[in-house]
């Protein structure tokens, strides 16, 4: 075996007296690709930051990190600066904030080159253009002169990859590099990342909570739980026969669709009921203000002529990538946004008329994506859940009703006396669900309700929603960008692209034999545990 490129020995990280990383030891061989996996709060990112000497203020590391025979932890900041970018580099999750918004892309990529390799400005820029081409950006010359906001999310992340690879580092650390991207873009970026790492003979440490993503890029896997490594070894071995219970739990949480091809859906459409929502030719356009006086306004069609029925008792899944108009559609259904044109009826009530909003509130309620932002931080949970009852003037014993609702979403009885920030993401989402159920709605609209949650929590939350649907006799509209989640919960699915409905039908049919190219692309982009979806490395 060759000498390891980087060796982490007994690495611990403390925040005051709290242990964040607990005696982690592992090593990475030159040119290897390793996945560091675990749920949020498991210490994945902190481990990587400690390796690069980038720990935030107030954190302190002990142990040794040896790169090419030199210990990094004991070295002064000045030496580390020289190593960062040239010997090791990092790709961050959110390329919009990781790139300087007022600096052109080309110059940002050229910056490490000028620093570490003392290149002249034109030389560095030329190399930057070349690098942008190699990560698959069209018209690299023009893009190098663009600002970050002028690029799409996928292009920005490609630019980050180009920047990380610019000085030919031995190690690249990528922290959730595709989590903020759409599925189809994620597949492209992962492919570029893997191929470029291989082409540059660099080692990769890929940090992610997404097991199928790891499976498709990494050869080895390290599993972190509460800051400690519970298992490490070759990916194929660990994914096929996990030794630790925690790894098994993570694997069980992977949706069936990502495990194998051709899984039948959990639900089949029941006998069609009466429509509870009827939308006819609904449009919503936004006018962007013209930059110059003479220019015509730029018009965005967020929802572009959508007609649909939601039938009583079903779960309708709406899938689409960001910007497909699915959230706008949900808000139009509730009357939170007024459509530019078209008809929207909920239980025969015209939602677009302002005077009808009140009765609609009692019929339809919504759960939002971000359980952090959807609960007022200055209100007790008890008041949060009781708010809709008070707002709609529903009579009865509110205290008892709140207790009943909290029990229904399996939260302990004392939940009501605490503040939202005292709970985990999954628990907060349960509070949000309890609030939505408070007025006794017939229709529950869930807008990406599990996207901000860890995978194992996702599964539990989906099961809870299924249970509540039966208990409360609900009709559900479930919106998500994640096809495997929609596959788990829906009877019928509706695929949206750029404000239009592309395809609709029972989940089994649409996912097994998609009629439209776009649906096929979406399905093909789902990462799978067998690691097959990216194809062999170039």
């Amino acid at each position, binding site marked *: 075996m060759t000498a390891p490129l980087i060796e982490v020995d007994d690495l611990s990280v*403390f925040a*005051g*007296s709290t242990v964040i990383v607990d005696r982690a030891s592992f090593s990475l061989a030159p040119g290897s690709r390793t996945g560091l996996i675990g749920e949020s709060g498991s210490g994945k990112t902190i481990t990587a930051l400690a390796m690069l000497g980038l720990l935030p*203020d*107030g954190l*302190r590391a002990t142990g040794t990190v040896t790169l090419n025979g030199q210990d990094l932890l004991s070295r002064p900041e000045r030496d580390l600066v020289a190593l960062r970018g040239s010997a090791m580099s990092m790709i961050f999750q959110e390329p919009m904030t990781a790139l300087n918004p007022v600096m052109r892309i080309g110059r940002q990529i050229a910056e490490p080159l000028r620093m570490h390799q003392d290149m002249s400005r034109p030389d560095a820029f030329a190399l930057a253009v070349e690098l942008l081409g190699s990560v698959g950006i069209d018209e690299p010359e023009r893009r190098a002169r663009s600002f970050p906001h002028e690029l799409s999310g996928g292009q920005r992340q490609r630019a980050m990859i180009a920047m990380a690879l610019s000085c030919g580092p031995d190690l690249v650390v990528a922290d959730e590099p595709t989590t903020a991207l759409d599925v189809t873009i994620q597949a492209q970026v992962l492919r570029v990342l893997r191929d470029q790492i291989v082409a540059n003979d660099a080692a990769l440490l890929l940090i992610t909570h997404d097991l199928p993503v790891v499976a498709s890029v990494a050869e080895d896997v390290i599993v972190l739980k509460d800051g400690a490594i519970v298992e490490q070894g070759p990916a194929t071995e660990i994914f096929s026969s996990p030794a630790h219970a925690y790894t098994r739990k993570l694997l069980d949480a992977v949706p069936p669709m990502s495990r194998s091809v051709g899984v039948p859906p959990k639900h089949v459409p029941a006998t069609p009921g009466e429509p509870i929502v009827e939308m006819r030719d609904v449009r919503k356009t936004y006018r962007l203000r013209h930059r110059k006086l003479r220019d015509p306004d730029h018009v965005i069609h967020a929802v572009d002529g959508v007609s649909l029925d939601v039938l009583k008792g079903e779960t309708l899944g709406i899938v689409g990538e960001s910007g497909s108009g699915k959230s706008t559609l949900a*808000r139009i259904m*509730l009357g*939170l946004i007024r459509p530019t044109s078209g008809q929207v009826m909920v239980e025969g009530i015209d939602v677009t008329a302002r005077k009808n*909003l*009140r009765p609609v*509130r009692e019929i339809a*309620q*919504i759960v*939002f*994506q*971000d359980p952090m*932002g*959807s*609960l*007022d*931080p*200055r*209100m007790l949970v008890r008041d949060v859940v009781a*708010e*809709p009852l008070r*707002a*709609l003037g529903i009579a009865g014993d509110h205290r008892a009703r709140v207790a009943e609702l909290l029990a229904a979403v399996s939260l302990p009885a004392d939940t009501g006396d605490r503040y939202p920030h005292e709970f985990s993401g999954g628990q907060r989402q349960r509070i*949000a669900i309890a*609030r939505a159920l*408070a*007025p006794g709605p017939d229709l529950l609209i869930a807008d990406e309700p599990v996207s901000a949650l860890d995978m194992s929590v996702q599964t539990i939350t989906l099961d809870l929603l299924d249970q509540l649907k039966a208990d409360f006799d609900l009709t559900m509209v479930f919106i998500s960008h994640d096809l495997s989640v929609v596959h788990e919960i829906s009877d019928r699915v509706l695929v949206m692209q750029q404000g239009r409905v592309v395809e609709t039908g029972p989940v089994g049919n649409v996912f097994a034999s998609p009629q439209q190219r776009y649906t096929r692309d979406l399905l093909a982009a789902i990462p799978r545990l067998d690691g097959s979806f990216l194809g062999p490395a170039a």
Partner: protein
Amino acid sequence: MTDRAASAETPPTERRRGRWRRLNLGLGLGIVLTVIAVALVSFVWTPFDPERIDASKRLLGAGEQGHLLGTDQFGRDLLSGIMVGARTALFVGILAVGIAVAIGIPIGGFAAARRGWVEDVVMRASDVVYAFPPVLLAILLVAAVSPGTGSAMVAIGIAYVPIVARVTRGAALSVFQLDFVSAARSYGRGNAYIFVRHVLPNIASVLIVQMTILFALAILAEAALSFLGIGTQPPTPSWGRSLRDAQTFLQLSPRLAIWPGVAIAVTVLGFNLLGDGLRDALDPRLEVRRT
């Protein structure tokens, strides 16, 4: 690990900043409470009657005949005047800030909730008011009504409305974007209720800080207006007017200007420190870093 070992690991700069923060708050609070205490005490007791004129005691030096800070050109006790002046200063701050907040917060909240052309109209209108210097506004109002502490302060309060409206709108805008506001709409709450119940508590810290700073500015503005002779009218003692009166005797008896000046400076400093300290203490982001 013990707590002491843990705190020893906090970077020293962090700790020093924390100590400064608490010092600001403590000092500011101390000064403000002292001013309030002095104002309250002056209702029941002052060393001498601050308005009593006694030609035989004109321009006494500090400590002469029991006058701790001496007397002015009419023989009035300086210390008593300053003590009663604190009352005026606080009254002025409360009135001006009260007016600014009572009008500014609803305006800012309304603009943030409605957006669109409503916001444009409201905010441009407040820009127009903002374009007038507060003192000019005060002079206009005093000319129209009558000189006095009240009308001067109403003018200062109105002049501060755009500042409060702007701060409120800016802070409220970001809160209105949050999902819990959408959630409140989805179960039927109107804008007014959402603003009062959901948005205001979440922007209160910003507003409180702004209020302490405006309070300090209002005290300064009153002093300036009284110095010009269009603020507090005699015989009501005011620090600003004391300064004006002292102007004539600056050569002869500078302490007549020094003590009211010190009172103004220290009080304004106190409110500013309090604002600074509160901003740090109420900032939840700093809270997280400290725990």
